[in-house]
Protein backbone atom coordinates (compact mmCIF):
# COMPACT_ATOMS: atom_id res chain seq x y z
CA UNK A 1 0.00 0.00 0.00
CA UNK A 2 1.36 3.40 -0.91
CA UNK A 3 1.84 6.07 1.68
CA UNK A 4 -1.03 8.52 1.86
CA UNK A 5 -0.01 11.72 0.15
CA UNK A 6 -0.93 14.98 1.86
CA UNK A 7 -2.02 16.16 -1.57
CA UNK A 8 -4.14 13.48 -3.25
CA UNK A 9 -3.13 14.90 -6.63
CA UNK A 10 0.60 14.52 -6.06
CA UNK A 11 0.93 11.47 -8.33
CA UNK A 12 -1.00 13.12 -11.14
CA UNK A 13 0.96 16.36 -10.84
CA UNK A 14 4.23 14.47 -10.89
CA UNK A 15 3.24 12.68 -14.08
CA UNK A 16 2.33 15.96 -15.75
CA UNK A 17 5.75 17.30 -14.82
CA UNK A 18 7.25 14.29 -16.51
CA UNK A 19 5.48 15.24 -19.70
CA UNK A 20 2.34 13.10 -19.48
CA UNK A 21 -0.51 15.24 -20.75
CA UNK A 22 -3.04 12.50 -19.94
CA UNK A 23 -2.46 13.11 -16.25
CA UNK A 24 -3.36 16.74 -16.80
CA UNK A 25 -6.56 15.70 -18.56
CA UNK A 26 -7.48 13.68 -15.48
CA UNK A 27 -6.92 16.75 -13.30
CA UNK A 28 -9.09 18.79 -15.65
CA UNK A 29 -11.95 16.30 -15.36
CA UNK A 30 -11.53 16.36 -11.60
CA UNK A 31 -11.58 20.12 -11.11
CA UNK A 32 -13.39 21.58 -14.08
CA UNK A 33 -16.74 21.90 -12.32
CA UNK A 34 -15.29 23.49 -9.20
CA UNK A 35 -13.24 25.95 -11.25
CA UNK A 36 -16.23 26.88 -13.39
CA UNK A 37 -18.35 27.47 -10.32
CA UNK A 38 -15.64 29.64 -8.80
CA UNK A 39 -15.37 31.72 -11.97
CA UNK A 40 -19.15 31.83 -12.18
CA UNK A 41 -19.18 33.67 -8.85
CA UNK A 42 -17.10 36.40 -10.40
CA UNK A 43 -18.53 36.50 -13.92
CA UNK A 44 -22.17 36.19 -14.90
CA UNK A 45 -21.74 35.38 -18.58
CA UNK A 46 -21.71 31.59 -18.92
CA UNK A 47 -19.83 31.67 -22.21
CA UNK A 48 -17.17 33.77 -20.58
CA UNK A 49 -17.01 31.35 -17.64
CA UNK A 50 -16.13 28.46 -19.92
CA UNK A 51 -13.50 30.53 -21.73
CA UNK A 52 -11.89 31.68 -18.51
CA UNK A 53 -11.92 28.14 -17.17
CA UNK A 54 -10.15 26.97 -20.33
CA UNK A 55 -7.61 29.75 -19.97
CA UNK A 56 -7.11 28.84 -16.30
CA UNK A 57 -6.20 25.26 -17.15
CA UNK A 58 -3.90 26.33 -19.98
CA UNK A 59 -2.09 28.72 -17.64
CA UNK A 60 -1.84 26.02 -15.00
CA UNK A 61 -0.42 23.59 -17.55
CA UNK A 62 2.23 26.09 -18.61
CA UNK A 63 3.12 26.93 -15.01
CA UNK A 64 3.19 23.38 -13.65
CA UNK A 65 6.97 22.99 -13.95
CA UNK A 66 7.24 25.81 -11.41
CA UNK A 67 4.68 24.27 -9.04
CA UNK A 68 6.64 23.37 -5.90
CA UNK A 69 3.85 21.59 -4.02
CA UNK A 70 4.05 24.10 -1.18
CA UNK A 71 0.27 24.05 -1.26
CA UNK A 72 -2.22 21.52 -2.54
CA UNK A 73 -2.59 21.47 -6.30
CA UNK A 74 -6.21 22.60 -6.07
CA UNK A 75 -5.29 25.60 -3.90
CA UNK A 76 -2.71 26.60 -6.50
CA UNK A 77 -5.20 26.08 -9.33
CA UNK A 78 -7.80 28.10 -7.44
CA UNK A 79 -5.45 31.10 -7.29
CA UNK A 80 -4.75 30.85 -11.00
CA UNK A 81 -8.49 30.78 -11.70
CA UNK A 82 -9.12 33.88 -9.60
CA UNK A 83 -6.26 35.78 -11.23
CA UNK A 84 -7.32 34.70 -14.71
CA UNK A 85 -10.90 35.80 -14.08
CA UNK A 86 -9.75 39.18 -12.71
CA UNK A 87 -7.50 39.74 -15.71
CA UNK A 88 -10.26 38.76 -18.12
CA UNK A 89 -12.65 41.18 -16.50
CA UNK A 90 -10.13 44.01 -16.69
CA UNK A 91 -9.24 43.19 -20.29
CA UNK A 92 -12.83 43.03 -21.42
CA UNK A 93 -13.84 46.02 -19.32
CA UNK A 94 -16.78 44.22 -17.86
CA UNK A 95 -18.17 44.74 -14.43
CA UNK A 96 -18.24 41.64 -12.33
CA UNK A 97 -21.48 40.85 -10.64
CA UNK A 98 -19.49 39.68 -7.66
CA UNK A 99 -16.15 41.37 -7.11
CA UNK A 100 -13.06 39.56 -6.02
CA UNK A 101 -13.20 41.44 -2.72
CA UNK A 102 -16.68 40.20 -1.99
CA UNK A 103 -15.57 36.72 -2.96
CA UNK A 104 -12.75 36.92 -0.44
CA UNK A 105 -15.32 37.88 2.15
CA UNK A 106 -16.81 34.43 1.84
CA UNK A 107 -15.06 31.29 2.98
CA UNK A 108 -12.82 30.31 0.08
CA UNK A 109 -12.67 26.73 1.25
CA UNK A 110 -16.42 26.37 1.63
CA UNK A 111 -17.29 24.01 -1.18
CA UNK A 112 -20.97 24.31 -0.46
CA UNK A 113 -21.08 28.06 -0.91
CA UNK A 114 -23.52 28.75 -3.69
CA UNK A 115 -22.96 32.45 -4.26
CA UNK A 116 -26.61 33.11 -4.97
CA UNK A 117 -26.19 32.63 -8.70
CA UNK A 118 -29.27 32.83 -10.79
CA UNK A 119 -29.59 30.85 -14.02
CA UNK A 120 -28.18 32.83 -16.92
CA UNK A 121 -29.04 32.88 -20.57
CA UNK A 122 -26.32 30.35 -21.43
CA UNK A 123 -27.85 27.62 -19.26
CA UNK A 124 -30.64 25.91 -21.11
CA UNK A 125 -33.61 24.47 -19.25
CA UNK A 126 -32.53 21.04 -20.49
CA UNK A 127 -29.07 21.48 -19.01
CA UNK A 128 -30.53 22.60 -15.70
CA UNK A 129 -32.89 19.67 -15.66
CA UNK A 130 -30.07 17.26 -16.41
CA UNK A 131 -27.99 18.72 -13.58
CA UNK A 132 -30.87 18.42 -11.13
CA UNK A 133 -31.50 14.86 -12.22
CA UNK A 134 -27.88 13.94 -11.62
CA UNK A 135 -27.90 15.50 -8.18
CA UNK A 136 -31.12 13.72 -7.27
CA UNK A 137 -29.78 10.39 -8.52
CA UNK A 138 -26.54 10.69 -6.55
CA UNK A 139 -28.42 11.62 -3.38
CA UNK A 140 -30.90 8.77 -3.80
CA UNK A 141 -28.05 6.32 -4.46
CA UNK A 142 -26.12 7.33 -1.39
CA UNK A 143 -29.23 6.95 0.76
CA UNK A 144 -29.59 3.42 -0.56
CA UNK A 145 -26.04 2.42 0.47
CA UNK A 146 -25.33 0.24 3.46
CA UNK A 147 -24.22 2.11 6.55
CA UNK A 148 -20.56 1.06 6.15
CA UNK A 149 -20.34 2.17 2.54
CA UNK A 150 -22.18 5.43 3.14
CA UNK A 151 -19.99 6.31 6.10
CA UNK A 152 -16.79 5.51 4.20
CA UNK A 153 -17.64 7.61 1.12
CA UNK A 154 -19.00 10.45 3.26
CA UNK A 155 -15.87 10.62 5.40
CA UNK A 156 -13.74 10.68 2.28
CA UNK A 157 -15.65 13.01 -0.04
CA UNK A 158 -17.39 15.36 2.36
CA UNK A 159 -15.11 15.35 5.39
CA UNK A 160 -11.96 14.96 3.32
CA UNK A 161 -10.38 12.37 5.61
CA UNK A 162 -7.48 10.24 4.40
CA UNK A 163 -7.79 6.46 4.21
CA UNK A 164 -5.70 6.17 7.35
CA UNK A 165 -7.96 8.54 9.26
CA UNK A 166 -11.07 6.73 8.03
CA UNK A 167 -9.61 3.41 9.11
CA UNK A 168 -9.19 4.86 12.61
CA UNK A 169 -12.72 6.25 12.67
CA UNK A 170 -14.30 3.07 11.32
CA UNK A 171 -11.93 0.78 13.19
CA UNK A 172 -11.04 -1.30 10.16
CA UNK A 173 -7.93 -1.90 8.00
CA UNK A 174 -6.99 0.63 5.33
CA UNK A 175 -7.57 -2.03 2.67
CA UNK A 176 -11.17 -2.33 3.84
CA UNK A 177 -11.57 1.44 3.64
CA UNK A 178 -10.26 1.43 0.10
CA UNK A 179 -12.63 -1.38 -0.84
CA UNK A 180 -15.67 0.24 0.79
CA UNK A 181 -15.08 3.56 -0.92
CA UNK A 182 -14.69 1.85 -4.28
CA UNK A 183 -17.87 -0.19 -3.77
CA UNK A 184 -19.77 2.93 -2.72
CA UNK A 185 -18.61 4.80 -5.82
CA UNK A 186 -19.51 1.90 -8.05
CA UNK A 187 -22.97 1.55 -6.51
CA UNK A 188 -23.68 5.23 -7.10
CA UNK A 189 -22.09 5.23 -10.56
CA UNK A 190 -24.22 2.26 -11.56
CA UNK A 191 -27.34 4.36 -11.06
CA UNK A 192 -25.72 7.37 -12.64
CA UNK A 193 -24.40 5.78 -15.83
CA UNK A 194 -27.67 5.89 -17.77
CA UNK A 195 -27.66 9.66 -17.24
CA UNK A 196 -24.00 10.06 -18.14
CA UNK A 197 -24.20 8.56 -21.60
CA UNK A 198 -23.40 11.45 -23.85
CA UNK A 199 -26.21 12.28 -26.19
CA UNK A 200 -24.35 14.18 -28.87
CA UNK A 201 -21.86 11.51 -29.78
CA UNK A 202 -19.10 12.98 -27.67
CA UNK A 203 -17.24 10.22 -25.92
CA UNK A 204 -14.87 10.22 -23.02
Amino acid at each position, binding site marked *: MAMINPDPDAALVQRVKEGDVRAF*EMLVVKYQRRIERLIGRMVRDVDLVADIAQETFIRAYRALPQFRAESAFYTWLYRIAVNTAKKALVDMKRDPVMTYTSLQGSDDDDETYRGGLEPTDGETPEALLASKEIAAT*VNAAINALSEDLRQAITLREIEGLSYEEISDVMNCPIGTVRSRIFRAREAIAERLRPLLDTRDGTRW
Partner: protein
Amino acid sequence: MSLPDSDRSSSRRILSALADGDATDSEVARAFQSWRDDPDARASWHAYQLIGDVLRSDDLASEPAADAAFLVALRARLATEPVVLAPQPRMQEEAVAQPVAANASARTRTRWQGPIAMAAGFLAVIGVLNVAGPFRHGGNASLASNGAPASGPVLASTSSVGDGGVVLTSAQTKAAADQLAPYLAAHRQSAMSGPFQMPGSDLRNVSLVQPAK
Protein backbone atom coordinates in the same frame (compact mmCIF):
# COMPACT_ATOMS: atom_id res chain seq x y z
CA MET B 1 -10.86 -1.00 -26.52
CA SER B 2 -13.14 -3.37 -24.62
CA LEU B 3 -11.82 -5.07 -21.50
CA PRO B 4 -13.04 -8.22 -19.76
CA ASP B 5 -15.22 -7.54 -16.73
CA SER B 6 -12.50 -8.55 -14.25
CA ASP B 7 -9.97 -6.21 -15.87
CA ARG B 8 -12.55 -3.45 -16.02
CA SER B 9 -13.37 -3.86 -12.34
CA SER B 10 -9.68 -3.87 -11.48
CA SER B 11 -9.12 -0.76 -13.56
CA ARG B 12 -11.99 1.04 -11.84
CA ARG B 13 -10.71 -0.01 -8.43
CA ILE B 14 -7.34 1.55 -9.23
CA LEU B 15 -8.97 4.75 -10.50
CA SER B 16 -10.92 5.00 -7.26
CA ALA B 17 -7.70 4.72 -5.25
CA LEU B 18 -5.95 7.23 -7.51
CA ALA B 19 -8.80 9.70 -7.03
CA ASP B 20 -7.95 9.64 -3.32
CA GLY B 21 -4.18 9.74 -3.80
CA ASP B 22 -3.78 6.18 -2.56
CA ALA B 23 -2.57 4.37 -5.67
CA THR B 24 0.84 2.70 -5.76
CA ASP B 25 3.34 3.64 -8.46
CA SER B 26 2.49 0.62 -10.58
CA GLU B 27 -1.22 1.35 -10.18
CA VAL B 28 -0.67 4.95 -11.23
CA ALA B 29 1.07 3.75 -14.40
CA ARG B 30 -1.76 1.36 -15.10
CA ALA B 31 -4.36 4.06 -14.50
CA PHE B 32 -2.75 6.27 -17.12
CA GLN B 33 -2.72 3.45 -19.59
CA SER B 34 -6.42 2.85 -18.89
CA TRP B 35 -7.15 6.52 -19.33
CA ARG B 36 -5.42 6.46 -22.70
CA ASP B 37 -6.86 3.21 -24.02
CA ASP B 38 -10.19 2.56 -22.36
CA PRO B 39 -13.26 4.81 -22.78
CA ASP B 40 -14.85 3.02 -19.82
CA ALA B 41 -11.95 4.11 -17.61
CA ARG B 42 -12.37 7.72 -18.72
CA ALA B 43 -16.11 7.57 -18.11
CA SER B 44 -15.57 5.98 -14.68
CA TRP B 45 -13.02 8.61 -13.67
CA HIS B 46 -15.52 11.31 -14.64
CA ALA B 47 -18.32 9.56 -12.79
CA TYR B 48 -16.27 9.20 -9.59
CA GLN B 49 -15.27 12.86 -9.67
CA LEU B 50 -18.81 13.97 -10.40
CA ILE B 51 -20.12 11.87 -7.52
CA GLY B 52 -17.62 13.50 -5.17
CA ASP B 53 -18.59 16.96 -6.37
CA VAL B 54 -22.32 16.33 -6.00
CA LEU B 55 -21.82 14.90 -2.51
CA ARG B 56 -20.12 18.16 -1.57
CA SER B 57 -22.66 20.40 -3.27
CA ASP B 58 -25.67 19.82 -5.51
CA ASP B 59 -24.78 22.84 -7.62
CA LEU B 60 -21.66 21.06 -8.84
CA ALA B 61 -23.84 18.65 -10.75
CA SER B 62 -23.37 19.48 -14.38
CA GLU B 63 -24.56 18.17 -17.66
CA PRO B 64 -22.13 15.38 -18.62
CA ALA B 65 -22.06 16.41 -22.27
CA ALA B 66 -20.80 19.83 -21.17
CA ASP B 67 -17.98 18.23 -19.18
CA ALA B 68 -16.95 16.12 -22.15
CA ALA B 69 -17.11 19.08 -24.51
CA PHE B 70 -14.96 21.10 -22.14
CA LEU B 71 -12.25 18.43 -22.21
CA VAL B 72 -12.42 18.07 -25.98
CA ALA B 73 -11.96 21.82 -26.41
CA LEU B 74 -9.11 21.89 -23.92
CA ARG B 75 -7.41 18.95 -25.61
CA ALA B 76 -7.34 20.92 -28.84
CA ARG B 77 -5.60 23.78 -27.07
CA LEU B 78 -3.23 21.50 -25.17
CA ALA B 79 -2.19 19.94 -28.47
CA THR B 80 -0.67 23.26 -29.49
CA GLU B 81 1.19 23.66 -26.20
CA PRO B 82 4.76 22.44 -25.75
CA VAL B 83 4.95 19.44 -23.44
CA VAL B 84 5.85 20.52 -19.94
CA LEU B 85 8.95 18.94 -18.50
CA ALA B 86 10.01 19.96 -15.03
CA PRO B 87 13.60 19.26 -13.91
CA GLN B 88 13.62 16.02 -11.95
CA PRO B 89 16.00 14.85 -9.24
CA ARG B 90 18.67 12.61 -10.78
CA MET B 91 17.45 9.41 -9.10
CA GLN B 92 13.88 10.02 -10.12
CA GLU B 93 14.88 10.94 -13.62
CA GLU B 94 16.67 7.64 -14.04
CA ALA B 95 13.72 5.75 -12.59
CA VAL B 96 11.23 7.17 -15.05
CA ALA B 97 13.47 7.23 -18.09
CA GLN B 98 12.77 4.85 -20.91
CA PRO B 99 15.00 1.78 -20.81
CA VAL B 100 16.64 2.60 -24.12
CA ALA B 101 17.42 6.11 -22.99
CA ALA B 102 18.73 4.80 -19.69
CA ASN B 103 21.05 2.36 -21.42
CA ALA B 104 22.31 5.03 -23.76
CA SER B 105 22.98 7.29 -20.80
CA ALA B 106 24.84 4.52 -18.99
CA ARG B 107 26.96 3.83 -22.06
CA THR B 108 27.82 7.51 -22.32
CA ARG B 109 28.87 7.64 -18.70
CA THR B 110 30.92 4.48 -19.04
CA ARG B 111 32.81 5.87 -22.00
CA TRP B 112 34.25 8.79 -20.09
CA GLN B 113 34.30 7.29 -16.63
CA GLY B 114 36.69 4.49 -17.54
CA PRO B 115 39.63 6.54 -18.82
CA ILE B 116 39.23 9.14 -16.10
CA ALA B 117 39.16 6.55 -13.35
CA MET B 118 42.20 4.83 -14.85
CA ALA B 119 44.15 8.08 -15.10
CA ALA B 120 43.22 8.99 -11.54
CA GLY B 121 44.39 5.59 -10.35
CA PHE B 122 47.79 5.94 -12.02
CA LEU B 123 48.22 9.45 -10.68
CA ALA B 124 47.41 8.28 -7.17
CA VAL B 125 49.95 5.43 -7.33
CA ILE B 126 52.66 7.69 -8.74
CA GLY B 127 51.97 10.32 -6.09
CA VAL B 128 52.13 7.83 -3.27
CA LEU B 129 55.36 6.32 -4.59
CA ASN B 130 56.95 9.75 -4.79
CA VAL B 131 55.92 10.60 -1.25
CA ALA B 132 57.14 7.24 -0.04
CA GLY B 133 60.60 7.69 -1.58
CA PRO B 134 62.38 8.83 1.59
CA PHE B 135 60.95 5.90 3.56
CA ARG B 136 62.11 3.08 1.33
CA HIS B 137 63.04 0.16 3.49
CA GLY B 138 62.11 -3.49 3.58
CA GLY B 139 59.09 -5.01 5.33
CA ASN B 140 55.55 -6.18 4.61
CA ALA B 141 52.28 -4.35 5.09
CA SER B 142 48.66 -4.30 4.12
CA LEU B 143 47.34 -1.21 2.42
CA ALA B 144 43.81 0.02 2.64
CA SER B 145 42.02 -3.10 1.76
CA ASN B 146 38.25 -3.03 2.02
CA GLY B 147 37.71 -6.11 4.05
CA ALA B 148 40.54 -7.93 2.38
CA PRO B 149 42.62 -10.30 4.47
CA ALA B 150 45.78 -8.77 5.88
CA SER B 151 47.84 -11.86 5.41
CA GLY B 152 49.59 -10.61 2.33
CA PRO B 153 50.34 -7.29 0.73
CA VAL B 154 47.26 -5.72 -0.85
CA LEU B 155 47.13 -2.46 -2.70
CA ALA B 156 44.12 -0.19 -2.53
CA SER B 157 40.98 -1.88 -3.63
CA THR B 158 39.75 -0.65 -6.98
CA SER B 159 36.16 -1.53 -6.38
CA SER B 160 35.26 2.04 -5.50
CA VAL B 161 36.43 3.51 -8.77
CA GLY B 162 34.26 1.42 -10.97
CA ASP B 163 35.05 -0.54 -14.06
CA GLY B 164 37.92 1.66 -15.08
CA GLY B 165 40.03 1.08 -11.94
CA VAL B 166 43.67 0.04 -11.90
CA VAL B 167 44.55 -3.61 -11.41
CA LEU B 168 48.15 -4.45 -10.63
CA THR B 169 49.87 -7.76 -11.01
CA SER B 170 50.84 -9.58 -7.85
CA ALA B 171 54.53 -8.80 -8.40
CA GLN B 172 53.81 -5.12 -8.86
CA THR B 173 51.58 -5.20 -5.82
CA LYS B 174 54.23 -6.75 -3.61
CA ALA B 175 56.91 -4.33 -4.76
CA ALA B 176 54.70 -1.32 -4.22
CA ALA B 177 53.62 -2.53 -0.80
CA ASP B 178 57.18 -3.13 0.23
CA GLN B 179 58.09 0.39 -0.74
CA LEU B 180 55.13 1.88 1.06
CA ALA B 181 55.41 -0.05 4.33
CA PRO B 182 57.69 2.36 6.17
CA TYR B 183 55.68 5.35 5.00
CA LEU B 184 52.52 3.76 6.29
CA ALA B 185 54.05 2.89 9.60
CA ALA B 186 55.08 6.50 10.07
CA HIS B 187 51.68 7.67 8.95
CA ARG B 188 49.89 5.44 11.44
CA GLN B 189 52.05 6.62 14.27
CA SER B 190 51.37 10.20 13.33
CA ALA B 191 47.65 9.61 13.07
CA MET B 192 47.44 7.95 16.46
CA SER B 193 48.92 10.90 18.23
CA GLY B 194 47.50 13.64 16.06
CA PRO B 195 44.42 15.76 16.53
CA PHE B 196 42.38 13.86 13.90
CA GLN B 197 42.35 10.51 15.61
CA MET B 198 39.05 8.76 15.06
CA PRO B 199 36.95 8.46 18.20
CA GLY B 200 36.22 4.93 19.24
CA SER B 201 39.20 3.58 17.37
CA ASP B 202 40.70 0.43 18.72
CA LEU B 203 44.13 1.96 18.28
CA ARG B 204 45.76 3.11 21.46
CA ASN B 205 47.71 6.27 22.07
CA VAL B 206 51.24 5.71 23.14
CA SER B 207 53.70 8.26 24.30
CA LEU B 208 57.33 8.11 23.45
CA VAL B 209 59.61 9.01 26.28
CA GLN B 210 62.90 10.36 25.08
CA PRO B 211 65.78 9.45 27.37
CA ALA B 212 67.39 12.48 28.85
CA LYS B 213 70.69 13.33 27.29
